[in-house]
């Protein structure tokens, strides 16, 4: 468990440092920063103080802390997938709009009745 704890801690430090870097470069919103920061802090707590996770789990009527973490993780992952999907849809729509605008602006009209021939 100790080796795993060390690996996870190193990963978490890197993750938080990266998060701060993203915030400084304005690549992430303050809300986004806070969300991910809390996620990583929660992961750290679960690994270093698993009994705390169990106490919280008990508050929600779940026996084991590990189960509680898995349930929360699944919810978070699904929510993120939903957000990514929705974002991809939006990007896709925007790409179509740009492609369409370029196509129409650069129309090549060779009709016989076209005065621009």
């Amino acid at each position: 468990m100790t080796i795993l704890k060390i690996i996870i801690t190193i990963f978490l430090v890197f993750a938080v440092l990266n998060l701060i870097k993203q915030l400084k470069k304005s690549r992430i919103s303050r809300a986004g920063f806070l969300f991910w920061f809390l996620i990583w802090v929660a992961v750290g707590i679960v690994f270093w103080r698993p009994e705390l996770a169990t106490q919280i789990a008990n508050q929600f009527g779940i026996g084991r802390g590990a189960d509680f973490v898995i349930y929360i993780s699944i919810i978070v992952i699904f929510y993120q997938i939903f957000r990514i999907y929705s974002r991809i849809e939006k990007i896709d729509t925007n790409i179509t709009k740009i492609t369409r605008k370029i196509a129409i602006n650069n129309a090549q009209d060779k009709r016989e009745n076209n005065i621009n021939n």
Partner: protein
Amino acid sequence: MENNKKIFIIIPAWNEEKNISSVLDELTTQYENIVVINDSSTDKTSEIVKKYPVVLLEHIINRDQGASLQTGNDYALKNGADIIVHFDADGQFLVNEIKDLINPIMNGDYDIVFGSRFMEKQSEIPWSKKNIIFPLARIVNKIMFGIKTTDPQSGFRAMTRESAEKIKIEHDRKAHCSEILHKAFKYKLKIKEVPMTVIYNRFGQNFSGGITIVKDLIIKKIFR
């Protein structure tokens, strides 16, 4: 023939170098306003289309059939179209059947007319499409949109300017057939189906294509 109404024929084309010439050879003798949307073809479709007296719109990125049709609609509306016809680049529809679609609109009786493979004229529809894919498509249309037509996936259609202004195609891929049907019903347009012939070469959706359409419809419903 055009009866002073400005008719625009919209043809989405993706890698159609083998078929587009014969389609344009025939169409250009009968219609003045033909718009081909080259959907980022990797073959010589664009070079071939440039030889004809038509409008060529180039999608610099492949956006698929539904997106191409809407690009054509936008161009036609911008250039004063009264009637817009959606046609196919691979020669599956018959040019001389376009008049069957536009006549009911010309007469002022209908807003949108769909060609149907399931009315009097008999297209040689492959067995799997006729007995599995189309019945399933009808069920999907009925459940998701409450639509009931003889041909659930008709891509041959004509519509008035006002209809095209209302029906904005948001499904970039192949789900536009169901989408246009759905919106035609939603906006309470006067709808007619007329018999059409379809020549099957490499046309259309196989079963996995059908699944993709249903997936696209569901995703759009959730994320819109």
